């Protein structure tokens, strides 16, 4: 029986990261979907950058950024008393950056697909922008939101390089399942690695099949 700690920690991390990215991603994606600004392609590129950089490199730079003597790290220390790196909060911060494109891109597509029409209709029915986003745009983007959350969740579970660098592989605190598997592989504990990997694979597979099957029935209902 493998240690369940890393599994729970991964699920916790993925859930928190997904939640936070949803909160950040919705306004960002909404802005990207509606803006005419010159800056738009630049912001789009920035949100896509985490795809391009090797995770360990991102992790390295985040580590430098979170160093308690660097501005961000120092600010965090003075705010919370603890360091950002090597803490769960740090993992969340790093994962959020790394998984950002997986949240923003599907959301943006979904919002663009809804278009201006329903939002304008809501505005002429006395709904403020916020009201319209909440009660019209989001419900109509349900499928896209689901996709975005699943991708973000999945990618955070699978994420490894950044977390290892920033989190420091501390049991119960930053040792997530992907690091645990990595460690088993590295220390020639292949049986344990196989068990954990298979578990992760089956879990992910079942989740994804569920989501895609749901997506499909969604699609059927709308057409």
């Amino acid at each position, binding site marked *: 029986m493998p240690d369940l700690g890393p599994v729970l920690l991964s699920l916790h991390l993925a859930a928190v990261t997904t939640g936070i990215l949803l909160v950040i991603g919705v306004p960002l994606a909404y802005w990207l979907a509606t803006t005419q600004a010159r800056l738009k392609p630049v912001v789009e590129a920035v949100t896509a950058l985490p795809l391009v950089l090797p995770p360990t490199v991102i992790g390295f730079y985040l*580590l*430098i950024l*979170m160093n*308690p003597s660097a501005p961000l790290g120092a600010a965090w220390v003075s705010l919370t008393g*603890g*360091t950002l790196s*090597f803490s769960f909060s740090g993992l969340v911060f790093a994962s959020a950056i790394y998984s950002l494109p997986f949240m923003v891109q599907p959301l943006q597509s979904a919002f663009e697909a809804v278009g201006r029409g329903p939002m304008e209709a809501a505005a002429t029915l006395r709904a403020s922008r916020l009201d319209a986003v909440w009660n019209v745009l989001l419900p109509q983007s349900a499928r896209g939101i689901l996709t975005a959350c699943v991708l973000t969740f999945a990618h955070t579970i699978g994420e490894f390089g950044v977390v290892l660098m920033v989190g*420091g*592989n501390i049991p119960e605190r930053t040792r997530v399942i992907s690091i645990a598997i990595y460690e088993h592989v590295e220390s*020639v504990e292949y049986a344990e690695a196989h068990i954990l990997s298979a578990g992760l694979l089956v879990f992910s597979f079942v989740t994804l099949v569920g989501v895609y099957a749901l997506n499909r029935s969604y699609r059927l209902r709308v057409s």
Partner: protein
Amino acid sequence: GQAHQGDVMVAVATNFLDTAKVLEAEFEAETALEVTLSSGSTGQLYSQIENGAPFDIFLAADTDRPRRLVDAGNGLEGTQFTYATGRLVLWMPASQTPDFDGADELRDGSYRALALANPALAPYGAAAEETLVSLDLADSLSDRIVYGQNIGQAYALVASGNAEMGFVAASQLVKGAADGQGGVWEVPGDLHAPIRQDVVLMQRAAGNEAALQFIAFLRSDKALSIMRDHGYEEG
């Protein structure tokens, strides 16, 4: 300190992790103090310490990184010593030869790939390369050499059969005893410089009694016998 998690936070190079776990258990049983192990590559742990990682003790896989830390003031002057010396072996799982001679095998064997740990990063890799140079094989074998990023990956390359042969750590063969069949050649110590693994106490743990106890424990007979059982020589 920041280590809410028990009394001593130990950063340990992945190749020593197994042994460290046994040491940890023994130490905890003896002292009722709590040790937390965090593993990673030596280079990664070094970067983390430089950037404020909450480690009290650094069990590195080489002597260079601990020294750098001492020089930079992160490590406590005078606390660095060699806690273990690694033993390099050449492993060929498929070999049926009863008295397997690695040097002959390297020279004459029919194999496509020879796995090494990355000499730039891993001391075992550097030792393996030295060995090849000493045997005057470095050039002739250069197009058969493949690199694992560390000794763990070198082992994986061999264990998975992608490389027929590879330089791995004796400690890994102890651990993966079931896999460690076939031919194993203990590389003679005169073919490469000793693979010294150094420990250093962090500046932040200067007054940490538990950490000092753990350092002392590393020199105890009990610890040395555990390390020997796991394929290390004493430092």
